[in-house]
């Protein structure tokens, strides 16, 4: 589903965000990407939804070589990828419903179908009673669910999340992780970037560890590096 071949990303001339990274994530996999701040976790996620371009190497997503796609194909790629951002990126002047509906509006769904689908996903995530509220009036856990609903509403092939449990309490963390697992069971490939030791330790999933932009996969305790 996702393949990186010798990928190097550079934001500035003298420092590399990712350095000669090669990895393969099969369809339906559930992967944690770990590492300290600045290790390259977010950059790896950005590569998958074509928000950054490598200076060398190839990125393949769902069989598509991203080094060879043109700008017009990027929106089509992004429709296959749901992204949950660290800062949620929710629109404060829109209701919860409108925030989630954006994904389907972009796909050109009819409004009656959007209504049904958004309600369905909000109910699945347990926040359907807050759909007319502004995200500003929600707790951190609820905001995270809205961000997740927006990413999941069109059943993406890939789900990316950048520090999704960063500011949540234990109960909320577990509930959010359960939603990711449910999406994974439904067939979505899940990549979660995190530096939350407990989240990773509690799971038995594959761990990709990054250190200074370099890959150090499947360490016993990735946080030791």
């Amino acid at each position, binding site marked *: 589903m996702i393949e990186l071949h010798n990928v190097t990303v550079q934001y500035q001339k003298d420092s590399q965000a990712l350095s000669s990274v090669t990895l393969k994530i099969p369809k*339906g996999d559930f992967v944690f990407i770990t590492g300290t701040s600045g290790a390259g976790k977010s950059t790896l996620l950005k590569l998958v939804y074509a928000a950054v371009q490598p200076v060398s190497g190839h990125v393949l997503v769902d069989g598509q070589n991203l080094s060879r796609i043109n700008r*017009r194909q990027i*929106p089509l790629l992004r429709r296959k990828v749901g992204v949950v951002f660290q800062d949620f990126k929710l629109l404060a002047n829109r209701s919860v419903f409108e925030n989630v509906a954006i994904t389907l509006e*972009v*796909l*050109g769904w009819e409004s009656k179908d959007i209504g049904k689908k958004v309600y*369905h996903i909000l109910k699945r995530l347990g926040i359907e009673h807050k759909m007319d509220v502004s995200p500003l009036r929600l707790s951190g856990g609820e905001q995270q669910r809205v961000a997740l609903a927006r990413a999941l509403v069109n059943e993406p092939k890939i789900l990316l999340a950048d520090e999704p449990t960063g500011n949540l309490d234990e109960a909320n963390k577990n509930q959010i992780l359960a939603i990711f697992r449910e999406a994974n069971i*439904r*067939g979505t490939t899940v990549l979660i970037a995190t530096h939350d030791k407990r989240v990773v330790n509690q799971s038995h999933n594959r761990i990709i560890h990054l250190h200074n932009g370099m890959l150090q996969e499947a360490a016993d305790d990735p946080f030791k590096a």
Partner: protein
Amino acid sequence: MTRSKHNVRPAASTKSGGSKFGYFFRKAFSNLAANRLVTALTVSTITLALLIIAMFLLVFVNMEGTVEQWSRKVVVTVYFDKEPLPQELTSLKNRITALPGTGSVSFVSKETALKTFKERLKGQESLLDGVSADILPSSLEIALTREHRSTEAVNIYVARLKKVQGVGEVQYGEEWVRKFLTFFNFLRVLGLLIAAFLLLAVLFIVSNTIRLTILARRDELEIQALVGATPLFIKAPFLIEGVIQGGAGAVIAVSMLTGGYYTLLSNSANFLAFNPVEAGISFLPPLHLIALIIGGSFLGFIGSLFSLKKFTSI
């Protein structure tokens, strides 16, 4: 690996072109309503900018009208040594009328010439006491069409006129015509330069005002791009908003100019020593007003397009 049967992601848009356009319109109107304050500020800025253009246009159109009236004074005169017979006069008039560039031909008899002369000497008519009409020649005064009033065109016309059978002495104020036309052309170029400068300034103002509204909604643009919106999907509502705001600003500017003009007319006696209508000051023709409204919408469109260029490359 299983996927639910009833929720299949559409590969592309399910909307037809027409309903997509309808969606963009609904989106544009809901965005304008949701950002009322910013919309009001943008429309006000466009209104003021277009009002300046409209006022300039009013001055320019009146100036052109005045110049056009002056230019009618570019007259070529054919003098007769002796009074022509009516048949001769008719056939000569026909031959001159057939020349390209002839606007109108009028016969000035000796008597009329004397009368005009006396009018010009108002207060000193006694100078012409005892003078009979016979000392003045009768003549044909030829007004030229607008496109034949340039120096070269007048020279070519006079050369052709002299070849017409029955035409003797021809006179026209060469130096006056040259000076007048130079001044006229200078005014036109100056007017066009000022208009171009004003248009650029207005485009700059409109573009920056719209850019502020887009900046205020950059999060929305970013999210749309990240969930897979095409550039057209992101741009279309903003472009429609630009057209609506530009059009609304233009309609308000035209209404203010119309209101201002007619208020000035009805109250001019109170503070002006002359009546603007009698002084030849006219309002903009309807075609100009329609052009202003279409121009305002176009400005809004171009302003949005320029501003969006930067934001749709997320």
